[in-house]
């Protein structure tokens, strides 16, 4: 099955997306954020919380005499002065000690003092990646569409039970849904948690507990089961760092989600997503972008061009952060009104269009949610048509829809039914997409053409105004966000001349070990 698509329009869209992100990249290059700095501290080994539960990484960054220079210099200087480890430095700061003025330490000395911690941090990332590679070689994951399910009980231990059961039931990827609006916290919670709300807190310990349980299941099942969590939010870089250390395999990471859907400041998000994606690139983590959000909040037929435009923007940003196409899990969702005549045709058109425009990306396909109702029987059918579309159009990451989507976060049994649904449809229709052709000039092809030209039109408008201005004008999802409004703006700062971020330097090439 192939759509005849206008290759020139695709090239144009890609050029426009490049033109859109390039000025933003200039901005990013000149700025950092508190979360970027906290990620640097964490990668150097800073962990734990103070007596009030505030992470030491936060205490450290808040105590910086001049954050414009970055935490690395301060940390290097303190280490050089005291011979402490970064963790000890942070603990001392939390205990009330002041940081020495880095100006007191020669640049080479402070850099040299931090070197071993930087290398250790990078080595941990690389080791995790190498282990994943080895595990995947030994325990092949199975063919795409990769069946992805969510766990969301709020309690990491119940989540673990659910995740292992899902893996046994055929899940190839497990996502731990984050406690609601964790993206708005300007810190990463700590430790094993049991009291989330509509999801479970993303913490390093929770990552570890889950990865260990899934590793055990992977060995038992003879196939590597992947683990996913959410990066987008005020702590994108830190979550990316922790995920790298704990060998998560994927992360929700969108260049604009926080801005549009969480009212996070756009400058903050742009700077954060860049560094987080550099980390993702190094750690071999596949990002999942959040285009589904356009569709759940507005009409899915109308929003299709916006989804595609956003995919181009996400791609362009990802590329600038050194992510190869193989790590770009661009998002899409099956959200057209189930009662619309020929809605299925529109879905096939869009899914196939995305597939052909991003041939090497592991596309992430999200299930119907908005039009799901308490009618679980009908819901199960809508999920089946979604499953069919996915296997026909060769989507890669397939988030299994739940028949109880409109009712509760998934029960263990719901997940089993969802996996069974996907398995049944994808087996009985395995090669269907390969055995048919789309009629030239028919409804499917025309719809694909319209979506593509609509996306080009959007990108054109954005390129003319500039991305920040376009967002201010409400171009995406009809949501307007001021350039200097929104959450986390005070955590953005311009780098000074002395600024040093050794990880950014190491990752800048985007060079990724095999």
């Amino acid at each position: 099955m192939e759509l005849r698509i206008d290759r020139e329009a695709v090239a144009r869209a890609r050029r426009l997306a490049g033109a859109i992100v390039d000025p933003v990249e200039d901005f990013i290059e000149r700025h950092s954020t508190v979360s970027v700095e906290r990620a640097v501290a964490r990668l150097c080994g800073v962990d734990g919380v103070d007596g009030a539960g505030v992470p030491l990484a936060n205490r450290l960054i808040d105590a910086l005499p001049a954050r414009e220079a970055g935490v690395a210099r301060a940390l290097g200087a303190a280490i050089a002065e005291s011979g402490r480890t970064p963790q000890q430095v942070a603990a001392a700061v939390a205990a009330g000690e002041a940081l020495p003025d880095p100006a007191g330490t020669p640049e080479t000395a402070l850099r040299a003092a931090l070197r071993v911690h930087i290398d250790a941090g990078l080595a941990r990332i690389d080791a995790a990646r190498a282990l994943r590679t080895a595990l995947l070689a030994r325990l092949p994951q199975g063919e795409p569409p990769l069946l992805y399910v969510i766990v969301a009980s709020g309690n990491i231990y119940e989540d673990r039970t659910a995740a292992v059961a899902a893996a046994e039931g055929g899940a190839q990827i497990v996502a731990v849904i984050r406690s609601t609006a964790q993206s708005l916290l300007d810190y990463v919670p700590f430790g094993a948690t049991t009291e989330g709300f509509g999801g479970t807190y993303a913490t390093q310990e929770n990552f570890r507990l889950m990865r260990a349980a899934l590793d055990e299941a992977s060995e038992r099942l003879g196939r590597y089961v992947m683990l996913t969590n959410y990066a987008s939010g005020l702590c994108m870089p830190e979550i990316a760092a922790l995920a790298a250390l704990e060998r998560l395999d994927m992360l929700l990471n969108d260049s604009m989600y926080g801005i549009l859907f969480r009212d996070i400041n756009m400058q903050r998000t742009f700077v954060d997503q860049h560094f987080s994606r550099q980390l993702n690139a190094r750690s071999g983590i596949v990002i999942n972008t959040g285009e589904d959000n356009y569709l759940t909040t507005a009409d899915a037929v109308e929003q299709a061009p916006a989804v595609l435009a956003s995919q181009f923007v996400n791609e362009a940003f990802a590329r600038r952060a050194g992510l190869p196409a193989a790590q770009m899990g661009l998002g899409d969702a099956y959200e057209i009104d189930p009662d619309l005549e020929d809605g299925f045709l529109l879905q096939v058109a869009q899914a196939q269009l995305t597939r052909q425009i991003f041939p090497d990306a592991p596309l992430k396909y999200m299930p119907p949610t908005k039009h799901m109702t308490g009618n679980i029987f009908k819901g199960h059918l809508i999920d089946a048509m979604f499953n069919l579309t996915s296997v026909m159009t060769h989507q890669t990451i397939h988030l299994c829809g739940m028949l109880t989507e409109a009712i509760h976060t998934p029960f263990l049994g719901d997940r089993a039914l969802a996996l069974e649904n996907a398995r049944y449809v994808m087996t009985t229709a395995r090669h269907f997409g390969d055995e048919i052709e789309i009629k030239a000039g028919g409804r499917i092809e025309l719809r694909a053409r319209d979506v593509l030209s609509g996306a080009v039109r959007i990108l054109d408008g954005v390129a003319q105004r500039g991305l920040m201005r376009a967002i201010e004008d409400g171009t995406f999802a009809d949501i307007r966000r001021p350039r200097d409004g929104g959450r986390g703006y005070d955590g953005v700062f311009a780098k000074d001349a002395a600024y040093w971020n050794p990880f950014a330097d190491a990752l800048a090439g985007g060079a990724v070990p095999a």
Partner: protein
Amino acid sequence: MSLVRPYGDTQDDGAVQLSFTLPIAWDEAADEAARQLVAKMGFSDVSVVEGRAISAGFSFFVVYARTLVAVDASTIRAPSATGAALSIEQVDELIARRVGRKLKVVGACIGTDAHTVGIDAILNMKGYKGDYGLERYRGFEVFNLGSQIAVEDLVRFARERDVDAILASQVVTQKGSDIANFTALAELLEAENAREGLLLIAGGPRVTNLLAAELGYDGGFGRGTLPRDVATFIARRISDRQPG
């Protein structure tokens, strides 16, 4: 008395379908456990038509059984807040005639709830399923505070603007958060003596008018609500309160 029982294919056969998961490995004894469990719930003719392992320690069951339980449908009252809806023109005319000014309404997703799509559907110009929202009516002045609004802020806003109606939305129901938030709002209004003269309306996919009444609300609107249902309700209720 009109006793009503579930209907499979014959009046009063009491046929019910159940499904559930048990945290035990599957074998024939698990099927029997499921059967006994459903029998213990009070069902008869329990037939475990499907039982299977869904993972190492969990089994899933589909059961058909009969219940003897009945309810007297003639005594069950659940008056709907939704009556025969008026058109935009009729609502506007009613408000103009009986109230003589725009009605001020404020809507919000209260507590930690961020699901604005539902309340937006009711309030925004665009509306829902082809039915325009309250912003479109000449008779309403609409304030939409959006998501995650603390009840304190909502009550303060309502007082400051002297609104006629508060529209509170709750979509997340996990761990009873919807009930807690709705209750907090009603209680705060009472506590501040701000309840009187105010139309208090609850909405969300799990809301029923009956539930809303129990929580001390004037009306409750559930899944599938159209803006005009809400507009009609407000216009009628407030008109009825007008002297003369």
